[in-house]
């Protein structure tokens, strides 16, 4: 009675006669454009499946039908079919109509969590179907996007990896170097013509567990390579190669600004926010309510600091007053950059949207935020946004919810004036 309760022989071979004429198939093979991806990527698996099929049928007249239940695109499906028919022909299988065939072969292009699965159900005479299959890995999906405006926020992908990234810094030299701060190490990369190559990696030692939403900041220094600030831990690199890293338990304040804007804040080491205690303070103000990020905007006689508070409000401190701005669509990530556009300093702020995050540049005249660029969209959540130490660019890290990869971007603003 077949193969159990749900015998494959009862229902599985609902062959749709998509390939009617063998001559047409062969003609198709010679006329079809040669997409080489299948041949180069999957050639071995196609040949493997053909060998398995031929071992069941032997040489002779067969009919072949192919069904795509996978995420392969139609052109990929056609290419697999074309290659498979070629391989079958090379093993002595002659394509004919189903009525004339000694064996009927139903190919299904399927997939599971990790693999493509190509399955051949082979009927020879009245025997139950014989099943042959090959599995091959599925590639990771990727994502791109872009938009333009007279003032444009540029978002350039620097690096992508599966392990979390807390911050990134780039040293523009010859060759350029890139430093990636991860929860448990700092990796140093060197640009080698075609891309970044890891040069070194240094472990971050820490006695206490990181908070769940672990954050960190890299700061490029002049007398040594860099400092890394993490919750309750401070790490300082050496100043010669091979680069060393010394980490220690520390409650030291973190730099909130850059080389041009000096302000530090104390970080709550078991949480994901700054306590609100500021060093050296803003004028007479040395505290603000707890906050996630801060951005400084130089004015004629003072620096206006914006704080994305844990109370979901933006606090503006000018040294005397603490004014609250209701920024309904701002997220918790703010940073400022110096540009040649508008007033010369803009705020980059993340947005609160339902599915994925974006960052947009704002002018901040008269303490009112006005968007000046289109939002730069991210395919996931922005987990970090810091101004580079030179103040003219910012680095953002996002986590792509689809690919589960962390991506680091350099953000800059340009304008046509």
């Amino acid at each position, binding site marked *: *009675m077949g*193969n*159990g*309760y*749900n*015998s*494959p022989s*009862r*229902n*599985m071979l609902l062959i749709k006669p998509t390939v009617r004429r063998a001559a047409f198939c062969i003609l198709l093979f010679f006329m079809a454009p040669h997409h080489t991806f299948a041949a180069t990527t999957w050639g071995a698996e196609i040949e493997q499946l053909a060998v398995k099929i031929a071992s069941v049928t032997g040489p002779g007249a067969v009919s072949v039908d192919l069904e795509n*239940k996978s995420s392969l695109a139609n052109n990929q499906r056609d290419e697999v079919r074309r290659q498979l028919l070629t391989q079958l022909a090379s093993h002595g299988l002659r394509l004919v109509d189903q009525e004339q065939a000694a064996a009927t072969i139903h190919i*299904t292009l*399927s*997939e*599971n*969590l*990790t*693999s*493509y*699965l190509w*399955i051949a*159900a082979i009927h020879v005479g009245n025997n139950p179907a014989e*099943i*042959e*299959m090959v*599995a091959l890995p599925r590639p990771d999906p990727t994502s791109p996007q872009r938009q333009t405006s007279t003032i444009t926020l540029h978002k350039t992908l620097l690096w992508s990896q599966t392990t979390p990234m807390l911050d990134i810094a780039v040293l523009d030299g010859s060759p350029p170097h890139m430093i990636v701060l991860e929860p448990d190490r700092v990796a140093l990369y060197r640009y080698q013509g075609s891309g970044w190559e890891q040069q070194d990696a240094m472990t971050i030692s820490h*006695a206490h*567990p*990181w*908070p*769940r*939403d*672990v954050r960190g900041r890299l700061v490029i220094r002049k007398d040594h390579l860099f400092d890394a600030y993490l919750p309750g831990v401070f790490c300082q690199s050496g100043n010669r190669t091979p680069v060393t890293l010394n980490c220690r338990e520390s409650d030291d304040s973190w730099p909130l600004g850059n080389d041009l804007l000096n302000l530090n804040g104390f970080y709550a080491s*078991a*949480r*994901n*926010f700054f306590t609100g205690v500021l060093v050296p303070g803003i004028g007479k103000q040395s505290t603000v309510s*707890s906050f*996630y990020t801060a951005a400084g905007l130089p004015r004629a006689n003072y620096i206006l600091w914006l704080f994305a508070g*844990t*109370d*979901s409000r933006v606090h503006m401190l000018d040294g005397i007053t603490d004014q609250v701005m209701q920024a309904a669509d*701002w*997220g*918790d*990530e703010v940073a400022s950059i110096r540009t040649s556009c508008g007033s010369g300093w803009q705020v980059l*702020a*993340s*947005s*609160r*949207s*339902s599915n994925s*995050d*974006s*960052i947009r540049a704002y002018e901040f005249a008269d303490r009112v935020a006005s968007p000046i660029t289109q939002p730069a969209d991210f395919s996931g*959540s*922005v987990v970090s946004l810091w101004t580079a130490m030179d103040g003219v660019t910012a680095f953002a890290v996002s986590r792509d*919810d689809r690919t*589960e990869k962390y991506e680091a971007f350099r953000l800059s603003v340009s304008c046509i004036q």
Partner: protein
Amino acid sequence: MGGTRPRYGGTLRVNMQAALLSVDPADTNSTDPVALDEISCLLFDTLVTLDGRGALVPGLASSWRSDSGYQRWSFSLRSNVRLSDGTVLTPQIVAASLRSVNPDWRVAPSDDGVTIEVSSPARRLPMQLALTRNSIVQRDNGRLLGTGAFAVSLWQPGKQLILKEREDYWRGRPFLDEIDVALSRNMRDQMMSLDLGKVDLIELAPGQSQRTTEKRTIVSSRPNQLICLVFQNNTPNEDERKLREALALSTDRRALANVILQGDATPAGSILPNWQSGYAFLFAPAYELRSARELRDEVHFVTPWTLGYDVTDPSARLLAERIALNAQDAGLRLQTSMSSTTDIRLERILISSPDGYIALLDVARQLGLIMPKVPGNSTENLYQAEKELLESRRMIPILHVPANHALAPSVHGWTSQWDGRAGLVDAWLGTGRP
């Protein structure tokens, strides 16, 4: 996330239909494997865990290695991990926990972890250790201690469970202060509570996942549960095998999926769903009443069967009754029964691993079937093993169903697990304050 960092604080209020009587991840008597799994992973950790794509990542074990034959495995434990009573997790506790759940393994503590020896090559042993049932639990006179992100602060079996955050959790304190789980809540009451803002997370009855409103977020997993019929008699004779096949052919799975479960199910002819195996369509279920009658007519004496089901699950009763009606149409003698000892049980089994072989092994274990030995690790070998299990005629796959939940808009940060379910360890409440 929307550019918003997670907020600390608040109580997540959860409703569940299950009348859980134990939170032990190794409890074999639980009728709701999904509920038990969801609670267990908040309280306990495994040596090895899975990321959102189903890949292995270190858990309580920081590293592991095996000998060349995959029969002896060594796991190094992470240091400074503490149980919920503050005591340090030791290799002895880990070894005892694993031994109690896997009596066939030889588990011994070592200097920095545990070693596991198995009788035959087990290349997938780390994946097996990621199963919730292999969570590390210290069982002490009925008291369960774990290393998870939360600890039990109130436990009224079958009624209420309150979990409190652990400041010393080795992966960092969770954002939520508490999770308050009300058990034995029927689906209708759950929905009303969500609509009234009295609860933050509920289960959805069949069909409700398609009735979305802006007030809630629907999280539907992949079809990660198998509803199947399991026969108590292990050694069917030829007549019995024919009758079992007739029962399989008489079951109108499409009607069960579309009418009773209102489209929230997929007819199943296989144990593993197609998204996991990729070959499930080879076992496409058939509804052939005529063939069922012919098979039944080949048998002189039709044994009467009783069909048991989870009496706390209203949809299980409806499914059982419809299956019995279908069977009677084929001339079979099948009656539903609320007794705990019946000839056939309608079971709901969680597909517990992204690894097809481990998932199949675990289903076989849950159903009391013997996993066939296969020569290799290929998908073809897996297909052969599943085919043999089906041919044993000990069980009949009926449906694959997803787990559907609705969340209040204030719930953020939940993560999508490998099977699409919402993970709550990272959840936070938008209204919470740091």
